[in-house]
């Protein structure tokens, strides 16, 4: 394992303004989509970011690549300060850090051929001298992700969902990145295809030494793919740890509920399994609860939780939790 992390995120914040009025727009509030999160990913490792819809995991992934203007915090990728980078340094960063999107239908231009889609990063970053060289490189990339290079002049609609996701992966790999944000790369795919794409991502990691931030809501898949896992709730990381520690000894009541609610494909275990049922729904991030954001749904709620926000604290090597009840024992 490397001593210095490849990706280092410190106090990252992203607030979206909520406006009212068409002509005279006023800001009437802020959605705190990502509210002060910090983590690090060592080179060659995979960090899983899990949570339910609206918890800010996708926003976190996009903001740390500076695809959204951050509201606060700093991010270093391979030693470069992402938010301070300009000009040539920013271009170099964009080459090193790439993203794979969730929806393989919406994230590919339907009017472009595969050649144009996968070749675009090569063109933008000037990575191939001639058109011929670029086409050859695109063909190599297609082979790398398990597509037939003969299909280079086809359009996205001629491919199945799994193949389209492979095109998205090839595009991300075109600029020879070190770090890839995988934003729910398999959740739009059928079960039989999910395993294909996950295995491909793992093979590529082994061969190319890639570092992943794997954003997902499927907790079983995250346990399979990741080395470390961070659980998000309403813009905050509530628990973080190495995967086996976190799945076998979850401490935060939200992580416990999340893990207990995940279905298991075995009727004997499923019948024995005690599900922790949370009351109600996730509150609006526009107006999050005071104190601990989870307290209105929390079975362990203390007086303190309603007033004071718990911070992420270390409870064991490689295991951090933000919870007053855990702290109180």
């Amino acid at each position, binding site marked *: 394992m490397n001593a210095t992390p490849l990706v280092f995120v410190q106090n990252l914040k992203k607030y979206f303004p909520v406006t009212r009025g068409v002509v005279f727009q006023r800001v009437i509030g802020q959605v705190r989509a990502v509210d002060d999160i910090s983590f690090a990913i060592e080179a060659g490792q995979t960090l899983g970011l899990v949570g339910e819809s609206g918890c800010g995991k996708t926003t976190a992934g996009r903001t740390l690549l500076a695809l959204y203007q951050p509201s606060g915090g700093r991010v270093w990728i391979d030693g470069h300060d992402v938010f301070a980078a300009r000009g040539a340094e920013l271009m170099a960063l964009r080459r090193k850090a790439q993203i794979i999107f969730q929806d393989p239908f919406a994230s590919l231009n339907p009017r472009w051929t595969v050649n144009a889609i996968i070749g675009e990063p090569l063109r933008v970053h000037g990575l191939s001298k001639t058109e011929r060289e670029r086409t050859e490189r695109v063909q190599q990339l297609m082979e790398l992700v398990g597509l037939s290079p003969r299909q280079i002049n086809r359009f996205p609609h001629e491919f199945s969902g*799994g193949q389209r996701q492979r095109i998205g992966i090839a595009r991300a790999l075109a600029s020879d990145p070190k770090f890839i944000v995988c934003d729910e790369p398999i959740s739009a795919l059928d079960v039989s295809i999910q395993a294909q794409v*996950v295995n491909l991502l793992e093979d590529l990691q082994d061969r190319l030494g890639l570092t992943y931030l794997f954003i997902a809501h499927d907790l079983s*898949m995250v346990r399979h793919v990741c080395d470390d896992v961070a659980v998000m709730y309403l813009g905050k990381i509530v628990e973080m740890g190495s995967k086996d520690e976190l799945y076998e000894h979850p401490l935060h009541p939200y992580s416990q509920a999340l893990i207990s*609610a995940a*279905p298991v494909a075995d009727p004997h*275990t499923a019948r024995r399994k005690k599900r922790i049922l*949370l009351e109600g*729904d996730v509150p609006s991030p526009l107006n999050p609860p005071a104190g601990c954001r989870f307290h209105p749904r929390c079975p362990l709620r203390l007086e303190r939780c309603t007033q004071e926000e718990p911070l992420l604290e270390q409870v064991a090597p490689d295991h951090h939790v933000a919870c007053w009840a855990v702290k109180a024992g």
Partner: protein
Amino acid sequence: MSVILEVKDLVTRFDTPEGTVYAVNGVSFHLNEGETLAVVGESGCGKSVTMMSILRLLPMPPAKILSGSAKYRGQDLLQLPEDVLEHNIRGREIGIVFQDPMTSLNPVLSIGYQITESLKYHLNMNEQQARQRAIEMLERVGISDPARRLSDYPHQFSGGMRQRAMIAMALACAPSLLIADEPTTALDVTIQAQIVELMIHLREQANLSLIWITHDLGVVAGLAERVLVMYAGYIVEEASVDELYDHPAHPYTLALLAALPRIDKRRSQRLKSIPGAPPNLLVKPHGCPFAPRCELAFDRCHIENPPLGAIAAGHSSACWVDVNTGRPQ
């Protein structure tokens, strides 16, 4: 145990500009009184189309039911006059819950209107009685302050509450059979667990027979008594839930289970992926539909489609190969 629904040799096709879609290709199954049956398969396997055919909810054309019968307590639903089906069966004897509660609720009508509508139509209740019954139903599915919530519109409900309202609506006329088409797929895991618990509770309370359509072998394990696995418009395996997970007999079921990571176990190996892509339904089925992706396929599989045959008591599989030995049966 008496049989509540018996479907025989159902064949449904769609005529589209691209050609004929072979959606359901001779499906036969039955459901016992008070039983929970899960229909599992990936997108396009015909699981929803089968149920929609039985209820005659498909637009015809393009859909065409070529043959088959669907006897509900002795009455063939495919032969009943439309007005009898609409007034006495659909929404009255057989309730339906759809996958996406946002698109299947009418956004411009209040929740109360949408629940009372079916009560007034099917049970000839007056406004007062229907309102009272709607309040009871919302309370039973766990919506707090139901009297006030009746005048809310769907957008004022969260995703989980909308699905609860859909369930309340489906159960309002006290049907004997409920068909739930991927009712938890659009929901987050903690909300999914709430809905599954609710269904288990309601099923016992109301002595419901339940058909649960899903692609998730995990959800099924804790819920169903019997499972049908579908592929390319065919039932390829049928078994009790324990038998199916303990002794899967069709290579497709086997492969699906091996492709799923387990949340409750440490990672031991790579996921086993199913090669190739889901079947193209525009091509007339020829041989076993799974043969092109099957590890165990031999000559006969590509020529002749195996019939669904009993291999043990209550366990049928459509395969020429014995999966335990890998040799032809």
